[in-house]
């Protein structure tokens, strides 16, 4: 085989390998910033979403709509909300069908997730039993025993 061909193989293959990595990086990049690579508009939209998030978009209150505590309203902050019969819960239930540590609402970047903490009778979001963490939309009923809660803005 001619020497020039071997040299072409040698550098050509390395080039091919790095082209693949370049292609992979483009995918990573598209994933990070969204849309096509090469558009450097990521900063303004991000600031815009942050501003919107600080506004009145997210839910501000947790309201009990049914059950013994009906009418109770809790203002939502950054912290997680523990619901159960235990005294140190954020919302202390007096519901015979609730466990002492029943469920938890956690805030992850402005969104609230409900999570069952291994309760006996289960937590329901809409009609669905909560197994893992589920995203709670505003007005979606969370049922714990006889108590029904929902998020309101």
């Amino acid at each position, binding site marked *: *085989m001619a020497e020039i*061909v*071997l*040299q072409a*193989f*040698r*550098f050509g*293959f*390395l080039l*091919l*390998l*790095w*082209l*693949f*990595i370049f*292609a*992979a*990086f483009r*995918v*990573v990049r598209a*994933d990070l910033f*969204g*849309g096509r690579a090469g558009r450097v508009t990521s900063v303004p939209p991000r600031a815009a*979403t942050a501003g*919107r*998030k600080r506004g009145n*978009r*997210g*839910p501000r209150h947790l309201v009990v*709509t*049914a059950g013994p505590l009906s009418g109770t309203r809790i203002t939502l902050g950054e912290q997680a909300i523990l619901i159960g019969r235990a005294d140190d819960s954020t919302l202390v239930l007096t519901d015979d069908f609730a466990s002492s540590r029943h469920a938890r609402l956690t805030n992850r*970047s*402005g*969104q*609230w*997730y409900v999570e069952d903490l291994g309760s006996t009778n289960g937590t329901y979001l*809409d*009609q*669905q039993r909560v*197994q*893992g*963490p589920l*995203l709670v*939309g*505003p007005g979606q*009923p969370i049922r714990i025993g006889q108590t*029904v809660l929902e*998020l309101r*803005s």
Partner: protein
Amino acid sequence: MSGPGTDPRAATAGDPTPTRRGTELALLAFAVVITLAAQCIVDLTVTDSLSPELATFGTWFTALWVVAHLVVRRFAPYADPLLLPCVAVLMGLGLTMIHRLDIAGDQLGGNSSGEDAPVQLLWATVGLVLFVAVLVVVRDHRVLARFAYTLALVGLVLLAIPAVLPNSEINGAKLWIRVAGFSIQPGEFAKICLVVFFAAYLVDKRDVLALASRKVVGLELPRGRDLGPVLLAWVASILVLVFERDLGSSLLLFGIFVVMLYVATERASWLVIGVVLFSGGAFVAYQVFGHVRVRVDTWLDPFAYVDTGGYQIVQSLFSLGTGGLFGAGLGGGRPDQVPVAKSDFIASAIGEELGLFGLVAVIVLYLVLVERGLRTSLVVRDGFGKLLAAGLSFAVAWQVFVVLGGVTGLLPLTGLTTPFLAYGGSSLVANFGLVALLVRISDAARRPVAPPPATPPKLTDAPTEVVRP
């Protein structure tokens, strides 16, 4: 908080979340092209002609990835598009290097151990079967958490088998079991079982491990009884070291457990405790075990032991040095000079023929693979998935670090394999299983959340409206 507006994932596009399967297919095609190009270059450079087996190899290799892609498309449509292509390139490079070393062995004649590349391709096929099986059977990774203790038992048994069975010793380490002419390394599978167990266990216990702590000299130390699990992992890895004389697995297991503890609890004190326990164990092992001392001595000064234990590492260093920046070209070097170049020292073969640029490309491919795994861990919503993805990706990263460190003389040599690259059936099959789990978790992570199509729509339909007061 009405759906897409505040969801960082949905914010990127108003239209439905892209599955990115097209990207995956394109990159897989690229990976196959790279592999075939490498095979052609090797054949042309060494023998001046294309071997007739190349057509079979090409068809088989392409078919392998087409099947993998179709299975992902069907069973994990939102999976990460980069996991499979990275694996494909790494495996293709590995197969090419093994094929190249096969040819070198044939040319020298005599002691060639036969053709290893077809065997490796066969193992890859077995690995693909496992990949498909995992994706088809495990529809939701959280199911695995229920079998945590069973998997722990399976893992420990797999780890223990070679220590108990006779006739399992190869090169001083008791790692293999021989079944029907094949040597199987059950430790590779034990690794995955144990990572699953660690993840499930730590999700349960992380609050205790993270919160009940005392402050000692600025460090948050956990209570004595909470140290139990980490001590247990330490003892287990020491036992592996004693009975199987395997430095690599022992290091791998302990490293994975400490890092998973750290990820679960966010307490840096676990890392400190891990390093202290490791240093203690390493010191004692150095004093007590001859084989550990040999490894360390040859690492500190390989040229002093060039006639005995240091020969391999010295050859590997020469090999890397010969490669230089751009390498000798595929088929242009003499990577067969390094003993067991096909398995433990495949990285030095790549370093010799593709040079620093090629070896760094390989490392970057691993980096992309690990980054995608860690990203999956960040995005996925359940704690078990987070820990599992982090543990699995760390296992890959740690293995690559330890092996490449050994080959380049940065760390003492251990017996770990380079995932997907090195010759060895068990390692390849087990790592296919590992990637299948990552694909499964990344599918769960990237599935759109706002209007969840994952939940059966029947439940969220009419009855909801009726119940609402």
